[in-house]
């Protein structure tokens, strides 16, 4: 048995004899197990529920009776975002954003009914997830276990003996590190189980593995910091106090401070604010409901010339449909440009937030974790983009039916009598234009790419913390 393993085993023997350590480890283990089971159940429920709702929404749409096509534009449709497989570990922003969105003509709605809006408010930490336990609680456990692992030898006088026997400070530190890393490895088991479960649910092995690796790196960083403190500082209480301070700073203060800072530095106007600016522009475009609006005069001239006729009544197509289709396209372009600007600003806020990872590894791991799990804000933005694409698709397809399948004269006379209104309808087969929508997470590569910066910062932390251990262990004297 080499000296290093002997040192590590000795450390474990001491831990197993300490009631405080056993109690702390057990409590953390129970918390992780309970939270994981609860989150897993909840997410699995939500997932099947959302998929069912999506299918139901499509079937209701197809089942609508014969109608005027523009009625279906306003009848609208729903897009749902089922949580990805790894959301069982890190549900991310899903609780804050709401996971369904109503799609209709002429409007881009926001995702509604976020869980947080109806949540019981018990303060900052009440929403426990497996991810937050790994980010907040496991570092504390490592601190409790390891804050005295090196200086204990100093206190009890065994350090002198060990050094005199020819053990170097570095070898001693490696032995202690092995012991602490074994703890980290044991606590990775629940995460590995969750990762395996998610792979069985269709998650890519690459992302699941990266998530596990990222959290292991995060725990290694804390293990190294703890070990370094126990080497550098000479008193237990001081070492424990200093480490608690580092934890307080990295896990509680910096992340929230980073939120304050990124919201103060980059001002992202809300939707209402940018909508107001946009509405003024929209008015210049004309109202798609009113085909006699002057803004459409030029369009009218072009279409009449194209078909070589004098009046819109003579057109072989339905002029009102042309107007609806034209103004929807114009409006959507405008809406999208504002939506993109807003999402761009939010994305830069989140990027700035991610850079604060340089001050706290907790930020880096949480950002990487959300990204890898597919529950980050970028995924939410993609959901908004894809549901907008779906919206534009079915609205324009219905407008196309309006142009080709409904006679203009019948259409403008639709309000003259109930009979006329019944005639101004098209066959319900036309509703089949709605595309099937199944929101899926980004590809593994894409997510990994997006998480790269945070993961790199995490690696930087690991090198720095490892270097600190090596440097201080090398200088160990009596």
């Amino acid at each position, binding site marked *: 048995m080499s000296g290093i393993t002997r040192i590590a085993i000795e450390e474990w023997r001491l831990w197993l004899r300490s009631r405080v350590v056993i109690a702390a480890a057990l409590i953390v283990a129970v918390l992780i197990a309970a939270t994981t089971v609860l989150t897993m159940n909840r997410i699995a429920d939500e997932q099947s529920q959302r998929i069912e709702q999506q299918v139901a929404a499509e079937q209701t749409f197809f089942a609508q009776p014969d109608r005027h096509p523009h009625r279906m534009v306003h009848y609208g449709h729903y897009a749902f975002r089922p949580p990805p497989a790894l959301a069982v570990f890190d549900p991310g922003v899903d609780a*804050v954003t709401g996971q369904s969105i109503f799609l209709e003509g002429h409007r881009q709605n*926001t995702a509604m009914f976020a869980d947080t809006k109806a949540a019981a408010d018990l303060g900052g930490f009440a929403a426990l997830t497996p991810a937050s336990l790994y980010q907040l609680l496991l570092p504390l456990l490592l601190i409790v276990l390891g804050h005295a692992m090196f200086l204990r030898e100093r206190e009890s006088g065994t350090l002198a003996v060990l050094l005199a026997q020819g053990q170097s400070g570095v070898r001693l530190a490696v032995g202690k590190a092995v012991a602490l890393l074994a703890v980290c490895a044991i606590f990775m088991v629940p995460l590995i189980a969750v990762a395996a479960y998610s792979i069985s649910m269709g998650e890519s092995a690459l992302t699941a593995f990266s998530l596990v690796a990222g959290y292991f790196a995060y725990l290694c960083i804390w293990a190294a910091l703890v070990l370094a403190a126990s080497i550098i500082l000479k008193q237990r209480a*001081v070492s424990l106090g200093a480490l*608690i301070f580092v934890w307080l700073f990295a896990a509680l203060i910096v992340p929230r*401070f980073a939120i*304050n800072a990124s919201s*103060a530095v980059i001002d992202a106007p809300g939707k209402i*604010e940018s909508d107001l600016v946009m509405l003024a522009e929209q008015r210049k475009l004309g109202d798609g409901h009113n085909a006699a609006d002057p803004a459409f005069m030029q369009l009218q001239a072009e279409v009449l010339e194209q078909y070589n006729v004098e009046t819109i009544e003579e057109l072989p197509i339905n002029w009102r449909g042309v107007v609806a289709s034209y103004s929807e396209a114009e409006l959507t372009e405008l809406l999208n440009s504002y939506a993109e600007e807003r999402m761009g600003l939010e994305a830069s806020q989140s990027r700035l937030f991610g850079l604060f990872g340089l001050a706290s590894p907790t930020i880096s791991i949480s950002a990487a974790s959300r990204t890898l799990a597919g529950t980050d804000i970028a995924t939410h933005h993609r959901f908004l983009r894809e549901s907008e694409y779906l919206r534009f698709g079915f609205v324009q397809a219905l407008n196309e039916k309006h142009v080709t399948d409904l006679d203009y004269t019948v259409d403008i006379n639709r309000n003259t009598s109930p009979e006329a209104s019944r005639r101004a309808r098209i066959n319900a087969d036309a509703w089949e234009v709605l595309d099937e929508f199944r929101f899926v997470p980004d590809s593994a590569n894409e997510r990994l790419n997006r998480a790269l910066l945070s993961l790199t910062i995490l690696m930087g932390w690991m090198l720095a913390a490892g270097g600190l251990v090596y440097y201080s262990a090398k200088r160990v004297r009596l």
Partner: protein
Amino acid sequence: MVKSLIRETRFLAKDRGALFWLFLAFALSVIAVSFGILEVREQRQTIATLIEEDTADRINALQGQEDWGSAAYYAFHLTYSAPSDFAFAAMGQRDSSPWKHRVRMLALEGQIHEADTRNADFGLVGRFDFAFLAASVAPLLLILLLYDLRASERTTRRHDLLVATAGSSGSLWFPRAFVRVVGLALLLLIPLWIGAVVEGTAIALTLQASGIVVGSLLVWWLIVEMVSRINASASVLLTSLIGLWLALAIVVPAVSKAAIEAANPVPDGGEILLLQRETVNDAWDLPKEATMKPFVERHPELKPYEDIPDAWAWKWYYAFQQVGDQVTEPLVQQYRDARLARDSQATTAALFSPTSLVERAFEKLAETDATSMIVYEDNVREYHAELRAFYYPLMFPDEPYDSALLDDLPVYAPES
């Protein structure tokens, strides 16, 4: 007593460890308060801009309208909930619940659930505001300040000598801890008081908030005091105290939250929208009486105009918009009741967690708690009802359109 306090203050001035924690508390408080004020100012600025642009937009929208129906269709109205003069200390629900809307006279249920909230990361991580500092961080700082008062003397082997010479152990430890607690409380509160003066917060409110902070520090002091009577090493004491903090600040709130939410399910919000949409859309194909009957039941004064002879009329259109709202009322009520029930149970549950209690108390004072957000929603509903009450008597009897009358359109005036 005064003498021993002066003595302990002198000791404290030389204790670099303690001074560090105290300075940290002060710095964090300054940061929390100044970011809070910055954010509140920005929100007020946003509201001021919105009011201006909203008015301009409405004037523009109403120009050239020729009937009441189109006027009501094209004119949007801003509603908002301005941050209170204490909101800088606790942003609470304002990051995750909407506090501004633009509504018009269509079915309200399709509009009121729109969430114009900030970046979702903000709501997820939360802000570093004073409430968070006072509720979660301050207890940790207090623990770090007090845990080794006795144990450090034991380590230096002066403990027994000190106890023996001091006469009573109370006169020895009490002043020492008292000076630290008072120091921490003052350093936390001074920036808050300055912030309150800058923001013009009512003095009674500031006093209440200060009382909450002091009260919570006293509770934590008591906890530390009980634990440190155990004859154990400083690091074991600190470990136990951190364990207690974890239990009270994280485990108890998380367990209560999970239990409360399981016990009070909220109806799926999507159901409200779905029902409203189906009702409004079905109305197009139903005979007009099917809409007008439930409508005039709610508005008996409009009974004379119940018959809609035309194939299409604005009054019928707005009637089925309202019927869409009427049909969803039971669901909406359920949703609202469940939120309120969750909130009131959270009030009880918070009694078992000092951190939840402090945070909730601050949100209540700052009017950023769940109840205040519901009050805002109620205000929006009330305003929307005023809009209907304005247009219906003009629209239903077919009063001739007169744009001058629109100067009397109800204006959203939040009760503060």
